[in-house]
Every structure is written in structure tokens, then in C-alpha cells.
């Protein structure tokens, strides 16, 4: 690889790459994002390669293993370019057919096309699928198009042009101004204006400053940072280089969670490639600006996503937060000015530089600009990564994009903001999602996790689930979080198990408020949110658990009983045979019954009964 010694060289290189690619007639994009990868994406890539080789498809055809396409529910996803044909749920034995008909030939493989659930019609093009139509995939969109292993691919689509623009005469202050104009706010959850943070760090006293990327994404069910860093690491890195230039940093760190090996691998490869081209390292593009980026792997602690804990961990100490009375932009890593942004925030930067802060500020709401990537999971048809403009109504995300709830179940709530976020009930389905609105509803933006809950979810049980996570992940430094969260969890568990006493709800509420006010860090302070937000909208469920020892959603095992409706039971014996505990008794062709003492309330009989004879009370 040649090292680029001037900014003009970059443009020359881009033209050269484009020229090299002119003869490519067809390109097969195979999604190797987290969802599709686990669904067999890797195998598909291999099979496509074998098929290409067998048929002697030369340089005119390209196989592009890419990052996440977002539509995880339909993975593994394969898209044929330039026609933009979208094939869903591709199985290994269908690869030959695809190659035969859509790569070599110009036909469609009907059965692999997406079917619109409303009209029942087949949709050919990726861009026409409702899941994509209602989104604005400006940040994450590239991950599905990007050939992960090649920097040239990123360059061919204008990669690093933002960096070139910055280095061609933008002063650091101008860069910061552009970011400030854009109104970009921290995508990691805090929502602090990015430009203001950069400015503070630039103004902070100190010869050595650091830029840092927080890729310690740990919220259950959230994977947007993972998708970005795995699928398009250069976009994140380019953002960091621009940030470092603006702030005056010469060294930077990517703190990537240990559980993301592909993110570590791809980001490291990207750093190496960028360094070889002279886009990083000493004298970037022949200028006086130099930057070294180092990847540091987390060790599996959720708390290390908190800025001060992350920096302690980077310093080799136990990852624990400290108070924010000293700002990390003044004294962060090794007590030097440090600017930490989340993966998604960094990924926004090249766009802002290329298209202007004004362009960016036109997207979104008054105080929340741009788009936000959500990882939408749970009881939803179209689970996956969704990017929408700030202010998009929740309803649009869940129904128009998300395709509604499966099995015709009733929407109950959506949990946002990760384990210390909160639940938003059905009554607020029209909520326009931005930082303020979510906070006002008792939840938060967090890093963008959305878990959709339906009528079968018990909200007390949901609170217990998140508290369980927080008990495990509390660092243990401050008393309110260390002991308080444990006690919250114990109290909610007692409710789920029918051991709660009248007055426990009020005691729980008081404890929640105490923790909220006194805990040391953001994680601790927000740890009561799962309880407080469910109490706010679903207090009746708590009351039913405590006062009536009843679980309205019929989830809490200690509060429900399984019995058999004698009118409906045909004595088929399926439940009796399937029961793992032998709790079902009854002769064949005669009405069965369940021994409550033995029953563990696993629900297998309920699911197996064709006659609806199993009753949960």
C-alpha cells in the first residue's frame, strides 16, 4: 500500500480505486452482522465463494461480506447489486440457485423475496421494503454496503473525504463550530452536546490530550455500536481523527468490550489500514497533524461504560466511577484532558463535516438533532437495527417499521434506555422520541435499546429482570447502589413470589428515591428507573402482586396455578406425557388434572394443549 503524502493524493487514490472497480458488473452483499452471522452468514459467504470459483466468475463479479443490514428478523440477508434485489432468510442450499439465476442470470428467486404482510405482495428491492422505507439510515446505512475488510471500499464511497476537508484549511475551532451548529448530542445516553464537550476539552489546560471512543456497549439487547464498529470501523475512526484534530489530541483509545471480538478485529484492521495509507499515525496526509489510536479491550464490566470508570479501567485500575465534580475534559485519563464519545457519536462526525452542520441540524427536533439508531427487540415482528430521525413517533417505529407485534398480541409497553431506563406504556405510543420526551416520560434515551413488551409481560417481573442485571453489574463502590439495589431486587422478588407485605410498595418507592438522590454515578442514580417507571404506569400490577398475591399477566410462577378445564379436556394425554415433573394425572380418554404441589409452572402443558383446556389463574 502506498502512503499518501498529500491531501490531493487521497483524491487521486479514490479515482484510481473507482477506476479499478469500473468493470464490476454485479456485487453480492452478504450480511455478516451479528444477527446474520449467527444465523449462518459466514457459511453463506463461503458457499458463494465456492460457487463463484466453480463457475469461474472472474473480477467482474464481487462478493462483499458486509456489516449489519439492520433487518435482523429476516436474516441472513443477501442483496444483489446493482439491481438492489433483497433476499431474506437465505439458506445454504439456496446459494447455488441465487448464483445461477440472479448473478449469472438476471432473474429473481421469488421464494426468497420479502412478502409485504399487509398486501401479501412480493417486494423485490431492498429500498422498497416498509422496514427501510420509513427509516433514515444516514449513519448506519453504510454498514450494510461496506466491504468490511477493505479500506478501499470505504474510500471508493467517499471515505475520509471529511478528514481531507478538515485538513484542507479548516481550523480546529471551525471544526468544533460545525459540530456545535449541527446540534449533535452524545449518543451514548447522556445527550451532552458534542461540540461543547470538544470545545471544553480543547480549552482545557494540558499538553497531552486524549480522544476516546466508548465501545463498551453493555445494555441487554442493544447492539448498534457493535454493528457500527464491526461493519464500518473506518467511519468511527474517521470521526475520531477529526475529533482529535479539533481537540488537539495526539493519542486516542477505543475501549471495546471484550465480548465483541469481531469489533476488536475489524477496528484493529481498520486502524492498520488507515495507518498504512497515512490517514493515521505521524503526519497525516503530509500535514503536521499526527494521531495514534490504541484499542483497549474491556474486561466484562458494565460499569466500565461509565466515563470515569472507563478511564480508570484504561489506566489499569479497577473500573470504578468517581464523582463528576472534576470534568473528564479537564482531568480524565491520567488526569489529562480527555474527550470521550460513544461509537455512534463519532460515526456521525464525518457526515456533519461533509454535509455541514446546518444540514444535520435540519433533521430531528428542536433540541435533539439528527437521527438515532435503535436496536428494537422483544415482542416485535421486525426486530433489528432501526435508524430514524429524532422526534419520530414511537408508533411509527413499532408499527410502520417494526411491523407490529407477532401473534396479534396487544402492545403493552416499550422499555427504552437499557437496564436503568424505563418503560413507556401504550397510552404514550404517540410520543415523539427524543432526549427530552423520553426523560419526561420517566425513561431515557440511553444508548438506544428498545424492548417491546406485550400483554403477556408482567411489569413487576420486568422490573425484577432489570434489577437482577443491575445487582450483578453494580461496581460496589457506593453504599446506595451496592446495598440499595440489592435490597430493591429482594423487595421486588418478594413481590413476584407473593411474600410482600402491605406497605412494601411505599417502602420500595422511598428506597428508590433515596438511591436516585445519593448514588455516586449515573448508573447508580438511574438504577431505580426500572421500578419507578413501571410503578408510574403500572402501579395496579404491583398492587395486585402485593395485596392480592396475583400476577395479572400470569407470569410470576409463585402467584399462578395451572389447572385443567374439565369441560374442554378430551383426555388425549399430551400434557401428561410432556409434563417434565409428572404433575398431570389422569387415565386416557378421561379428564386429566394437575397436582399443584408437584407443578413447577413451566407452561409446557399450556403450550401443548390443542383444546385450550389448560387454565392459568
Amino acid at each position, binding site marked *: 500500500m502506498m502512503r499518501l503524502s498529500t491531501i490531493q493524493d487521497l483524491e487521486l487514490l479514490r479515482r484510481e480505486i473507482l477506476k479499478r472497480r469500473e468493470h464490476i458488473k454485479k456485487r453480492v452483499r452478504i450480511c455478516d452482522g451479528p444477527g446474520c452471522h449467527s444465523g449462518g452468514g459466514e457459511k453463506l459467504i463461503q458457499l458463494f465463494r465456492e460457487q463463484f470459483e466453480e463457475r469461474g466468475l472472474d473480477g467482474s463479479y464481487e462478493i462483499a461480506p458486509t456489516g449489519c443490514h439492520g433487518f435482523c428478523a429476516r436474516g441472513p440477508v443477501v442483496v444483489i447489486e446493482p439491481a438492489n434485489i433483497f433476499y431474506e432468510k437465505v439458506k445454504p442450499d439456496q446459494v447455488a440457485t441465487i448464483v445461477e439465476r440472479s448473478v449469472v442470470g438476471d432473474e429473481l428467486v421469488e421464494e426468497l423475496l420479502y412478502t409485504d404482510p399487509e398486501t401479501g405482495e412480493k417486494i423485490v428491492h431492498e429500498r422498497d421494503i416498509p422496514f427501510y422505507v420509513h427509516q433514515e439510515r444516514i449513519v448506519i446505512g453504510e454498514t450494510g454496503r461496506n466491504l468490511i475488510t477493505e479500506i478501499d471500499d470505504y474510500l471508493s464511497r467517499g471515505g475520509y473525504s471529511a478528514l481531507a476537508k478538515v485538513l484542507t484549511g479548516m481550523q480546529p475551532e471551525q471544526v468544533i463550530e460545525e459540530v456545535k451548529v449541527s446540534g449533535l448530542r452524545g449518543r451514548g445516553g447522556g445527550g451532552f452536546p458534542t461540540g461543547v464537550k470538544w470545545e471544553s476539552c480543547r480549552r482545557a489546560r494540558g499538553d497531552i490530550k486524549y480522544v476516546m471512543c466508548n465501545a463498551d456497549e453493555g445494555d441487554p439487547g442493544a447492539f448498534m455500536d457493535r454493528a457500527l464498529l464491526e461493519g464500518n470501523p473506518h467511519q468511527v475512526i474517521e470521526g475520531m481523527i477529526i475529533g482529535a484534530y479539533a481537540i488537539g489530541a495526539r493519542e486516542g483509545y477505543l475501549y471495546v468490550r471484550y465480548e465483541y471480538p469481531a469489533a476488536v478485529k475489524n477496528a484493529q484492521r481498520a486502524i492498520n489500514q488507515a495507518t498504512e495509507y497515512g490517514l493515521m499515525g505521524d503526519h497525516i496526509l503530509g500535514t503536521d497533524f499526527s494521531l495514534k489510536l490504541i484499542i483497549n479491550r474491556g474486561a466484562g464490566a458494565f460499569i466500565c461504560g461509565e466515563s470515569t470508570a472507563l478511564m480508570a479501567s484504561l489506566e489499569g485500575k479497577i473500573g470504578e466511577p468517581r*464523582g463528576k465534580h472534576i470534568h473528564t475534559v479537564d482531568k480524565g485519563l491520567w488526569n489529562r484532558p480527555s474527550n470521550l464519545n460513544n461509537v455512534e457519536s463519532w460515526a456521525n462526525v464525518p457526515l456533519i463535516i461533509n454535509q455541514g452542520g446546518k444540514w444535520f441540524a435540519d433533521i430531528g427536533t428542536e433540541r435533539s438533532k439528527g437521527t438515532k439508531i435503535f436496536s428494537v427487540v422483544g415482542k416485535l415482528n421486525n426486530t433489528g437495527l432501526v435508524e430514524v430521525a429524532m422526534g419520530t413517533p414511537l408508533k411509527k417505529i413499532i408499527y410502520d417499521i417494526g411491523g407490529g407485534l407477532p401473534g396479534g398480541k396487544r402492545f403493552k409497553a416499550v422499555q427504552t434506555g437499557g437496564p436503568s431506563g424505563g418503560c413507556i406504556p401504550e397510552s404514550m405510543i404517540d410520543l415523539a422520541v427524543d432526549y427530552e420526551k423520553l426523560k419526561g416520560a420517566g425513561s431515557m434515551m440511553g444508548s438506544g435499546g428498545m424492548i417491546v413488551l406485550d400483554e403477556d409481560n408482567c411489569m413487576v417481573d420486568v422490573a425484577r429482570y432489570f434489577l437482577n442485571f443491575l445487582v*450483578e453489574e453494580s461496581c*460496589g463502590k457506593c*453504599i446506595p447502589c451496592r*446495598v440499595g439495589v*440489592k435490597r430493591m431486587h429482594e423487595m421486588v422478588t418478594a413481590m413476584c413470589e407473593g411474600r410482600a407485605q402491605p406497605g412494601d410498595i411505599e417502602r420500595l418507592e422511598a*428506597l428508590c428515591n433515596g438511591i436516585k438522590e*445519593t*448514588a*455516586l454515578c449515573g448508573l447508580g442514580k438511574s438504577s431505580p428507573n426500572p421500578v419507578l417507571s413501571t410503578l408510574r404506569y403500572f402501579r395496579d400490577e404491583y398492587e395486585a402482586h402485593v395485596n392480592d398475591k396475583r400476577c395479572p399477566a400470569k407470569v410470576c410462577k409463585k402467584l399462578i396455578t395451572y389447572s385443567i378445564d374439565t369441560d374442554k379436556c378430551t383426555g388425549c394425554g399430551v400434557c401428561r406425557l410432556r409434563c417434565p415433573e409428572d404433575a398431570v394425572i389422569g387415565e386416557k380418554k378421561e379428564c386429566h388434572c394437575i397436582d399443584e404441589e408437584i407443578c413447577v409452572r413451566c407452561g409446557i402443558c399450556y403450550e401443548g394443549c390443542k383444546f385450550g383446556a389448560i387454565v392459568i389463574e
Partner: protein
Amino acid sequence: MAKITLKINGQDVQVDEGSTILQAAKEAGIYVPTLCYHPFLPLEEACRICVVEEVRRGWSTLVAACVFPVRQGMVIETDSEMVNESRRTILELLLSDHPNACMTCQATGECELQDLAYRFQVTAGAYQGQRHKYPVDSDPHPLLHIDMNKCVLCRRCIRACHDIQGADIWTKVGRGFNQRISTAFELPLLDAGCESCGHCADFCPVDAIGVRSGRGEVRPWNAVSGSTVCLQCACGCLAQYQVAGDKVVRVRGDFRSPANRGALCKLGRFNFDFINGPQRLTETLVRGESGELKPVALAEAIETTAKALSEVRDAGESASIGIIAGGMLANEDYYAAQKLARGGLFTNNIDHVSGPWQLPVYEGLSTSLGLGAMTNSLEDLSQARSILVMGSNTLEKQAIAALKVRAAVRGGAKLLLAHPREVGLGKDAKMQLAIQPGSEDALVLAFIKTILDQKLYDEAFLEAYTQDFDKLVRSMEKVELAELAEKTGLSAAVLTEAAQMYAAQRPACLIYGLETGAAALNETFYRMCAALQLLLGSVGMAGGGVNVLGAAGNAQGAADFGAWPKYLPGYRPAGQSGTKKMIAKLWGAELPGAAGLSWPEMFEAMEKGTLTCLYLIGVDPFSVGIAPNKVEAALARLKLLIVQDCRKTRALDFAHVVLPAAPFIAKQGTAINCERRLQKLEPVVRSGVAGDFELINGILKAVNESLAFTGVDQAFAEAVQLHKDLDNLNLAAVTVEGVQLPVSPEGSGTERLGLPLEEGKAKFKFYAARM
């Protein structure tokens, strides 16, 4: 410094910029509870008990007072409902995972958690749930008692272990509710490398880490506490003794003295068996006709002693009398003892156990640097950038100095450790030099040689502050590095590398720990130490200097107050006519002429039979480094052996008179530590027997009544007249922090032997090197 005005509970408070809310509240006399906070430890901000309400326009928030800096116009409420409710919640949560067994807990009465619960009227039981069940007394440590069920995870132990001791034994293990304080790999303390300093126990607010002594025997309120200076080593730490009856229950570091600032070593904290134990000497005994020691009244014993001594003196055989004083006496004891020897018995045969080691220090350094003692303060050592530690196993013998060295290393200093064996500071050293025992002089010369050869010295400093540089250079020309290397047992290459490392960062700090029993180096060695430091321009600033750590608790006091054969109080040479005349006038007694015998010489004289009367004051002759059979032979030939001590020793077998004395913690008087800090001793225990001073003074009175003192204060007042460095010192004005010698006529002390030198003042002298 700029001032900030804020409002606390409606009251205007003005404090320095950069203060915390807690500091501001303290200044205003407003109570803010704390638990993890400790003024002598770095901030942790873990417990949140100190939260206060910061009231802003329309809303308010709780902030941790211990860390939160004050801002102009800030409005703080420390006693609002919101604040108190939060504090109660935190305490309720703490108590929900605490044994709450105050009935049997050793800390009851001095437990900070208990105090907080009392103050905020919080009882256990607000929250039910899982409690930790750790084994009680979970560590076999012989001195510490561990019960982590009581732990509140304030982490003071971790900080004390790291910041004060520098041992890093305690750490936090696990996270969340399962976090606990433990060691690396959860090893037993001693296996993990615990140095048994006990700082963790001192700082533990509850009884999770406690001491074994007094457990189940003494409630804190049945003990009384008092502070005095520990004389078990030369660091002179101020220690707080918790005493019940005449027994010491527990010792804690006292933060008020700059010498130790709350730190103590294993010896100071745990070694009080000689006060409590069965070897304590309480009976006055005189050997009767039958050869048996028999109890007698004290007056009778003193009478007998004085009579016997007077007879020898009157027979003109004063030269056959000798007095050896121990290392743990007060200045006034030494002064009285030497007055008894010189004025009362007409002999200069007076020495203290560490005399032969201290004498060359004085003679070497006073001539080259103008002061015959450690040039800097102990606190100064932590400012060093490179450090050479030689001599004793510092971490055991002069622990506080070793802790300061560690603090310097934590701050980036490079430590070179020269010791024949693996010693405690080894793990902190950048380079360990396994030199031959007693070859420190060759090592220092090798450093000088390298620094001269490679011109690593500080020319500007030499020019400005020194003279006779050429004398040193010329003498070093004859010295071969290979020869020095052979003597140290190291290679020339290693010596060169070490010298380069030492010279690379400044200030460079030279530390030499004295140890009785080790080979005593001569005054040239100390002159060469001074030369080395002068070459590196590392004299006269914090972190530099020649820092000789004394061999005994009050070795410096013994020297200053004249308990050695060659010098009278104030380092006045014995036998010098002016001195003799002046003292004769002051005392009203004739003084002997020539210098007396040092104590090793006294032993030789005993063997020869020329010294027949020996008065041992707080000395165990079997522990001074002479072979036991030689000691036995010497003692057996004595006509009169007076043993005065607070504990029984083997010398009792040979004694004719045994005088029980009070231990140092029962004494009134003064002492001087290695950094020249004169501190007051206050009795913290009633011993039931007379102190050394009363006993010596009793004999003095019986020998020559006109020489006797009216009390300790008078002895001190008399002594300072003879010592120019203690000129007119008003003891009443000396605070608990003490005062460092030399003391100016205005009463202010000298932190370090200083630069810049005034115009026209003598320059530091270089001497020729000698092998």
C-alpha cells in the same frame, strides 16, 4: 489565595478557593457526617454519608461534601429533611448487612458506624435480606483480628496500606453486593506480604480490621488514652497509647507530629510486651552476703550504690567507673547520667549504646556540612527523585523513613538499594546492589569516582557553594574503580551503571541507616557521603541531603546532651580547658581531663580488670553485639554492677544492685529523633516505680548533693545553657509538633540544613578521600 464566599445553613462562610464543602463546613463549625473520608488519606467518595443539599434556583441536588469543591455564591444545606432522610437511608442500608452485635463488638464506644447510627437515630431492621456470612477471625495473623462481616467497605484500609505503608496488601475483590476487602488471590495476610504495620486497623472505622490485644478484656471507655513519643527507633513517632490500669491495650499513630503524621511501624504499634509482660522489672534488689539478690527499699539501694561509688572516687580510682546508657532514655536522663559521671564521679567514662555509631556521624558531617546529624526532615525524603539507601534494613529499623522512600518511589523516584541481604524495600528498588557487609564506603567512593570521571556533577552548585573541590579530585585520582568493585563484591560495570542512575535525577537523596551491632564506618565515610551529595548539588533542598538515621530511639538526644566519652553537652570537647572552666562554674564541681572510654573500650577494660564499677541504665549488655561469653566474662569481674532497667535481663545474674525503672511511656522529659526534632515526652501510664531520672538524680544527690536537680525541667534548663543549638529554648513554648535543631534564639527550628548560603558565609568543604 482567592477567597470564596458561600452560604451554609444560611450562614456566610468564607474559605480558600479549591476547598471542599466539607472543609468549609468544618471551618464554620458545622457538622457533616463522614465515614469513608479521613483527613490523612486520599479521597474515596464511596460512602455518600456526607451528602449535603446544594440549593439552586428552583431545584436542589445532593452532592458529596468530602469531594465537592466550593463555588462562589453556592448555597448549601447540611441539615435539611432531604439530607437527613438520605443519610438515614444509607445507614439503614449499611445496617442491613452488618452484624449489629454491638454488645460484644470490640469497637463499641469508638465505632464510627455506631456513632452515626446514634446521631441519626437509626436502628437495624429497616431492610431485610441477604447478609454476608464471612468467617469471624478469618486470618491467622498474630496481631490483627479480621471480621469482614463488620466491614462497611469504606476502603480506608486499602488507602492506608497503599498511601501510608506502600505495601498494597489490601484490595477490593468482587463487585456489587459481593464486593469485599481481601488480599491478592485472597491469601492469608502474611502470605500476601503483609508487613504488620497495623495501619489498616488504625483507620478501620468499625472493627472489621482490629488488633488482637485487649480483645474481650478492655472496653474503650475503661481505658485512657495519651500520647507520647515512641523511643523504639530513631524516627520518634508520636503515638497514642490506650492504657487500662498499668497495661497498654492498644497503640495508634498520632497525626499531630510531623515526624510520622499518624504512621507507626510494627514495633511501635505492637511491641509493648516489655511494658505489659512478665519480664517487667518491679523490685529493688541488692545482692547480700549470701550472694542472693534480696528486695530492699529503694532508698537503701541508692544509699548503698552511692556509697560504693563515692568510695571508689575518693580512692582516686574514678577511671575504673563506667556508665553506659541505653537508647530509650530521655534527654534529661542522659544529661543527669553524664553529670553523675563527670561532676559526681570525676570520670568521662560515659557512653550510650549507639555512641560508637553516632560519633563518626557527628565528626564526619559537622566538619563537612556544618551539622553532625541528618540534614533533612523525614518528610523531605518523599520529595527525592533518586534515592540511595544503605545500611540497616530500613523498613524494620527506621520504618518511617522507609515509608517516605516508598512515597518518593510512587512519585517517580528511582531507588537504589545497597544491602547484603534481601530486605523489605527490595520490591520498591529500581536496582539492588548486593554489596559486601560494611562496604558502603567503597560504594560511595565508586559513585564519586564515576561522577567525577564522567563529569556528572553540578558545576554551578560546586562553584557557588563549595570549596576544596580539587582536594577531592586529587585524592580520587589514586583510587581505582576495580579496587572499589572488589571491595563491594560488585562489578565495575554495575557500579558505574548504579552511579549513573543515581546521578540522573535530582534531587538525589542519600540515606544511611545505622544499626547497633553492624560495622561502624568512620568519619571519612560520612565526609564522602557529603561529598557525593554536594557533587550532585543535592544538599539544602527537600529530597536531597545526607540522611543518617540513628541507631536508637534517642541516640540524637544522647549525643546532644553529652552522654558520650569525648563530648560534653552541646558537643563541647571533653578536656578542653575553656569548656572545663565554664562547666565547673555552672556545676560547682571539678571535671575530669581527657576523653573517657567508649562502651566497647569499657568492656575491654573490664576484661583487663581496669574498670571495676559499671552502671547500666536501660541497657541489656547481652544485646549490644558482643559475644555472650565475653559479656559474661567481663561482667563477672566487676566489683560493682548496677543494673537499672524496666525489664529483666540476663545482666541481673551479675548485678550487685538492681534498680527498677519506669518504661519510656511513663516518662516526663524530652527526646530528639533522627531528623533533629526535639519533642516532649508525656507520661501516659503510671508505672509504680521511679523513672530513670529520679534514680540517677537520687544517686547524684547521694554522691554530691550540690549537683542534684530539683526536677526534670531544671535539668533541661541547665543543659540548654551548654548547647548553642538549643540556645535559650523555652520548653513551654514547644508544641506537640516539636522543634527541629538548631533552634534560633527566637525559638524557630530548622527543617533542613539549608541553602542558599548567606554572602560571606563559609562554603561547604570537600575532604580528601581515603580508603
